[in-house]
């Protein structure tokens, strides 16, 4: 038996405070997500969530617009094999300073730009390994007038101007400093350092704004400070490094030196969308009333544990911060994101 809920709080005086869960599983479009891949938060509180969906639920594929307060503003983009505004396997969304939205698609191997009204404007990219081509792009990071694209299967980072004009690239396949194995998420801190979730190397790498290797955090494992396929990274205003430790099905926070501070498995709960659903399903509502998550399991596989325990993160694929350093964790397999704050307290 394993108790997966224990936290070691000895290393920090701060704690994780659960705020809310936004989302709902929908297969046929409408309010909710299916297999959300990433989210981006606009200054006015509108949150853009890219739903990857699947072949039997194409109506849900697109970018849902919601708020932390459970408002739903409809979807932009749609499933499709290549016209402007269409997508197949969205992996990441992000915003520039003018609130244009950038979307990476690892099936179409392209980046699509939507204007602030949600209208698709242009796209660039095709499959390949030459400059300007992609092999399954994943993470995106806008830095002023340029955008960095994590070109996952080419194991490199490409830099473009915001019109899609190629500027430069760095990185190669490998396990050494500055090398990658199927990198995924990317972010920068307030000093302009870049952090990349080097997924299959089980580490977070830190680079200068020019792509020079600075240091690396973590190694393969499931104990504190170790990673199993980290998917994404964010850095808060204090410099704490927040990582969705994907295959360990947890969030980890390290301090700026990389020392472990805290971990979180998730506390997802019902929200107004779910409550409204249960109001229409009296039989489920009654049965749900006696439902108690059981945290002791008889297996070791974190994915199976998360499959059994609904409040836990299940395939946390992205982590983002809002302007107040609230932490948003997108969970592909629970079709929702959870919001936490990392704050003083005990």
């Amino acid at each position, binding site marked *: 038996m394993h108790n997966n809920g224990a936290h070691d709080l000895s290393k920090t005086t701060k704690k994780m405070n659960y705020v809310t869960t936004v*989302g*709902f*599983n*929908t*297969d046929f479009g409408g309010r909710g997500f299916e*297999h959300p*891949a990433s989210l981006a938060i606009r200054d006015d509180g509108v949150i853009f969530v890219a739903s*990857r969906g*699947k*072949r*039997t639920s194409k109506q849900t594929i697109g970018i849902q617009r919601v708020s932390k307060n459970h408002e739903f503003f409809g979807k932009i983009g749609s499933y499709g094999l290549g016209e402007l505004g269409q997508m197949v*396997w969205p992996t990441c969304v992000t915003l520039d300073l003018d609130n244009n939205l950038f979307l990476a698609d*690892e099936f179409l191997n392209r980046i699509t730009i939507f204007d602030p009204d949600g209208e698709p404007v242009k796209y660039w990219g095709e499959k390949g390994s030459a400059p300007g081509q992609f092999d*399954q792009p994943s993470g995106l990071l806008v830095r002023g007038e340029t955008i960095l694209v994590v070109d996952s299967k080419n194991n490199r980072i490409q830099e473009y101007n915001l019109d899609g004009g190629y500027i430069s690239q760095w990185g190669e396949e490998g396990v050494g400093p500055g090398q990658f194995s*199927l990198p*995924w998420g990317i972010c920068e801190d307030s000093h302009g350092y870049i952090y990349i979730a080097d*997924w*299959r190397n089980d580490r977070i790498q830190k680079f200068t704004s020019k792509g020079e290797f600075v240091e690396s955090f973590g190694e393969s494992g499931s104990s504190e400070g170790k990673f199993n*396929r980290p*998917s994404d990274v964010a850095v808060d205003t204090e410099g704490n490094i927040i990582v969705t430790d*994907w*295959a360990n099905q947890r969030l980890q926070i390290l301090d700026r030196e990389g020392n472990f501070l805290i971990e979180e498995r998730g506390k*997802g709960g*019902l*929200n107004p*969308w*779910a409550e409204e*659903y*249960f109001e229409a*399903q009296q*039989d*489920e509502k009654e*049965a*749900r009333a*006696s*439902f*108690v998550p*059981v945290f002791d*399991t*008889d297996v070791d596989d974190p*994915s*199976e544990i998360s*499959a*059994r*325990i*609904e409040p836990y993160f*299940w*395939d946390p694929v992205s982590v983002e911060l809002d302007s107040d350093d609230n932490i948003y964790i997108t969970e*592909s*397999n*629970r*079709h*929702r994101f959870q919001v936490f704050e990392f704050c003083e307290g005990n």
Partner: protein
Amino acid sequence: MTTVDYSKDVSLLAHLLRRASFGPTPDEMDYAVEVGYDNILKEFLNPKEADLVPHDMIRRYHVAQSDLRNQGAAYWIYRMLMTKSPLREKMTLFWHRIFATGWAKLIQHRPILNQIDMFRTHGMGKFDDLLIELSKDPSMIMWLDNQDNHGHNINENYGREILELFSMGVGNYTEDDIKETARAFTGWRVVNPEYMSIKMRNNTARPYGYMSWQFEYDDEDHDKGLKTILGQTGNWNGEDAVRIICEQEGTAKYLARHLYHYFVEDELPVPQWPHEPPRNPEAIDLMVQSYFDNDHSIKAVLGTMFTADFFKDIPARYARIKSPAEMVVGALRLAGPIELPSMDLLAAEDACTNMGQALLNPPSVEGWQGGTEWVSTGAYVQRVNFVSKVLSDPDKIGLRNIIDKIKEKASSSNLTHTQLVDFCLDILGPLDVMDSTKSSLNKYISRYPDLSWSDKSGSDSFDEAVVSLIQLIVSSIEYQNA
């Protein structure tokens, strides 16, 4: 017997690979010839380690399979395609046919794949352990309603099926044994049974996706009274029921007959077994003896079977009709490994379904009967079309390998038509075909007048000739059999 003249017999090795694996690939065959019959069998029976499946790659890039809510058959087919321990995978299919559990009722695939994992772990172990794990398996509990089997009010569904379908078959127990066995399994249920049941019944992933089930024993819901099961009286719980069941001659016979049906020769449909003797009673007796001599070890019974003359002898060759899973996986293995993510796996899942074996969704608790039931006109078209299509691209790794090997065998850079037919039949098995089939193949291949590959265009045309011929060979009557 000290002489091992059979050990390098390619026809016999191909026969073993059709049964204990998914039909030989050229590389598998080369290896088998190198190590010999007994050694390859030993490896099959004693898989060293778990197959390395890149779960991280599947879950990251095949997002629709990351929760295994569906596309579970595609995932399983991928494991069968890539396995280095084919007999272990074949045994998971074997148990799935008998302990047939289906998502049409359970809705999500994940718990059934957990059951298949359990077959991987226990499928060649002690039969008692397997039945205990099966009785604790959440998808089996939900499938046969044991979450409704209460101490004060039994639901006898599982009690019935463990005797009728999972261990000894009709005729070896009474209706009272069913009730008493059901009582022994009261309190064996899943966590949160009420909500899990209603989510299943309403077929709903809302609000936040499905939840995988977990076994729980509720001692308070267990009937602690005396029970008499198959003549033994005591304060039995589920483990005791399994122990008593596994001691029975009827259990050993039923298990042996199933193994014989699956690995040696198509038997009659299972519902007729109580009324008709086995095709080969001596073979069954030998396997029953092995079961009791080896502490109910399934591996031991398999070993006895695969080393016995009744398995090796000519009459057993091609005496089974391939199941759809064998057709599909066999063709995929010939075509070579698949890079993830791949739509090919979804096509393979659909193909099994269209041929009449929807994996993880058996037609009933009785599973699939096999034999001639695999073949109808509709299914026949699907069998031929899927397999020939999978083998239509000479640039697939497996086919390229086949073509290269054929070229290596030739003394110069060309072949005669009859040579090519013989080489292809050889490399796909060897596959023994009727004379009439061979003459049809010879006639067909004459449409390619020149079978030389000294230059690029000749080489392309040779490739085309080989894959055309292979497509026709796998469409033959003989290829339908294992």
